């Protein structure tokens, strides 16, 4: 690692994740090596107003042996470092108000991204949210976009999974972490992390190695998430949520904000629906509606473009009745039995067939719903 990067690592370590303090201190010297020199000489004139803690850290980290150990650790763990000054620093990110002074990354960090779109949403999402996130992630990746996500539980992971399922995209996902680069959060997402890297994507964070995923980290992280992207899609957000903060942040950075509408009675859709009604976000129902803001070649503007077409008559007598019943909302097996005049065994057999032909899908609690994403039922006159 070159001398300058070492000095950036030193000042970043000392100021932790406070880019404003970083810039302030840097501005007092002609260049960073002078600042480093000053600390080594115990010349604290320029540091008179910084706190005791920061000054201690400045002194500890200025030691060459400390920096040697730090750099060796980063190298050993395959962690790359890119400073705000460097050529490789993402252009979009450098345009925001307070870009991180440096980024740790794992994987391949591209300078220019093809259509980076952030997808954010609740961690405790509904099945609807998960399904939509996966589908939109897949469609975005299919159309060459890169999905930027926080890789947390819920919407984040679903979006990443959807995007990763597209083989043709050589950088489907960028993960922006709210913890150290060597910390996996949630713990069982290790496989997903690895897959992002394997598929040509990258994990980035500005937090020091070993930083735990503390609640206060996430708003700080979210500005990078939106900063790296050209647009932000909000899938599900509750009444007051971190997701809304990300959306506010994105607007301040001048990014396009999109929201997926939900049912007005659904608590997990209150946030997104409000963004739409207030005109803060553009409502979207498919990937094309997002991409059309940035490119002329956005693709079909239907959600289920790839869906199979099945005729109503081909469903059979009981199948038709099940379809008609489910058109009025999801139902469990017993409700279907009340609705349709047939025996439990006939219903079971038909349900299996309809599940396999993807006309319907099964939700937890043995509740059935129409699988409109995979199959469209047409009526032939």
């Amino acid at each position, binding site marked *: 690692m070159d001398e300058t990067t070492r000095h950036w690592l030193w000042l970043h370590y000392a100021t932790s994740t406070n880019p404003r303090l970083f810039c302030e201190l840097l501005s007092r010297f002609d260049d960073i090596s002078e600042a480093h020199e000053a600390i080594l000489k115990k010349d604290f004139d320029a540091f008179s107003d910084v706190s005791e803690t920061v000054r201690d850290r400045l002194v500890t980290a200025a030691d060459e042996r400390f920096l040697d150990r730090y750099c060796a650790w980063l190298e050993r763990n395959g962690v790359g470092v890119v400073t705000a000054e460097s050529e490789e620093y993402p252009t979009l990110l450098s345009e925001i108000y307070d870009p991180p002074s440096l980024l740790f990354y794992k994987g391949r960090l591209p300078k220019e991204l093809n259509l980076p779109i952030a997808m954010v949403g609740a961690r405790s999402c509904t099945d609807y949210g998960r399904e939509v996130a996966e589908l939109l992630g897949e469609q975005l990746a299919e159309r060459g976009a890169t999905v930027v996500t926080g890789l947390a539980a819920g919407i984040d992971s679903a979006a990443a999974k959807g995007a990763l399922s597209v083989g043709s995209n050589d950088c489907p996902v960028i993960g922006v972490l709210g913890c150290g680069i060597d910390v996996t959060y949630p713990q069982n997402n290790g496989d997903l992390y690895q897959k992002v890297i394997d598929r040509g994507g990258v994990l980035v964070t500005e937090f020091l190695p070993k930083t735990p995923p503390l609640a206060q980290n996430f708003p700080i992280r979210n500005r990078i998430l939106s900063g790296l992207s050209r647009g932000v899609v909000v899938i599900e957000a509750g009444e007051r949520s971190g997701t809304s903060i990300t959306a506010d942040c994105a607007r301040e950075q001048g990014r396009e904000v999109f929201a997926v509408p939900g049912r007005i009675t659904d608590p997990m859709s209150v946030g997104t629906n409000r963004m739409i009604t207030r005109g803060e976000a553009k409502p979207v129902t498919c990937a094309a509606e997002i991409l059309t803001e940035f490119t002329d070649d956005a693709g079909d503007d239907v959600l289920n473009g790839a869906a199979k077409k099945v005729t109503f008559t081909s469903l059979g007598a009981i199948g038709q009745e099940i379809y008609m019943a489910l058109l009025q909302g999801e139902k469990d097996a*017993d409700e279907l039995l009340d609705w349709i005049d047939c025996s439990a065994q006939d219903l079971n*057999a038909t349900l299996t067939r309809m599940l396999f032909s993807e006309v319907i899908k099964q939700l937890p609690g043995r509740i059935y719903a129409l699988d409109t994403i995979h199959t469209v039922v047409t009526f032939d006159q």
Partner: protein
Amino acid sequence: MLAKVESYGLVALNGYPVTVETDISSGMPNYETVGLPDTAVRESRERVHAAIRHSGFMFPQARITVNLAPADLKKEGSVYDLPIALSILEANGDLRPTPKGMIVLGELALDGTVRPISGILPMLIDAYDKGYSVFYVPKDNAAEAAYIRGATVFPVENLASLIQHLRGETPITPAEPKPFTGGTYNNAVDFSEIRGQTAAKRAAEIAVAGNHNILLCGTPGSGKTMLARAIPSILPDMTFEEALETTKIHSITGAMKGTSGLVTERPFRAPHHGASAASLIGGGTRAMPGEISLAHNGVLFLDELPEFQRNVLEALRQPLEDGFVTVSRAAATATYPAKFLLVAAMNPCPCGNRGSRTKPCTCTAAQIKRYAGRISGPLLDRIDLHIEMTEVGYREITDRKPAEPSETVRARVTAARALQRERFKADGIRTNAEMKGELIRRYCNPTGESEKLLRDAFKRLQLSARAYQRVLKVARTIADLENSPEIRSEHYAEAIQYRSMSMLSDL
């Protein structure tokens, strides 16, 4: 003088004849029991002493040696009180030598009354097979013993009456041989009392018809426990052979003392989830049967399945597959039958509300995964039917539409079981669930459309080879319930429904 009286011993379900030999010789008054007696046998000296005196005889003041042959097998329990007393009286000359081929069993009270013992049925069945046909048993055990066809069973009330009988003074009337009057059934909860849950009831019916294990999964209050408790009401009646098998096991634990004799009602065992592996599988120094053997030919209900200790659940795997269990202890090794219908119940997630449409689930995906992970894949594979039970709404509770009573369902189940018995006559099994590789190939071979359906299911549900075979077996039962000799594709389609539980596949 030397005297011999024959009695019987038991190691697990296997009996062996025991000869009680008594020698009385002159010398310093002394009493010694040899032949590996345990404490209960050794203490018999005090009971025998008092019982002889209170029955109007003199206890000989001489050197007495009681030998229980064969001398290298451990003798346990109080079974030998009566034969020891008899042999002492015989050796003392109070009684003429007893005829050969009679077996004497019983515990003595101090006043000479004969008390019931445990394990009478397995002992007598074994002895009868070995050529013994005359039995003297405690009066309270006579009901149990009287089911052995062709044997003469004398119910003994006290020592004095036995002596009078043997002397030919007041003969004891042999117990009336009891004919088997058919099984009885428990209808503690009738199917008609369960509101809604038509789909789950159908699954329960299939489970019982083919003796398939079943897992009920549902939100709290969806009626899992109630449905499980209603299952005994649709079980087919026990046959005589089944009743004997079950009674033998219950007899060893002493549970049959003072009862009408035979377990005619299919057992329903519901151990608490704190149960240890030994209590479920069997154990103790004497390798006693556990809950799974006590549930033989009946139902083993494990409520809150994930709350059981993991090692306890894993221990169930082998008996579930084999239908028997071998319990090995330092002192004894025993093999007990354990063919039971496993009914297990669990919540869909730690908070219980996953899949509920009225209450939100607060569990994270990781928590649900961990909860479901407490039940290992191999154990789940051995459970043929998985059914998710939906919440019961207000409408269903207040529904006045009459539901089917247990009796109707039981009739269908019995008919399906009869079909199976007929089919497997030559194969040595009774139900579809017991089919193994070769038999599955012979009796369930999907073709054409069914094969395509199953191939789809195999891929989509990521079935293991074992789970796949379970689907075939369940389809066979569904066809049997319809009295259809061939398994049609809709039968397979329904069987697949019982393996597609979203909780276990979706995460």
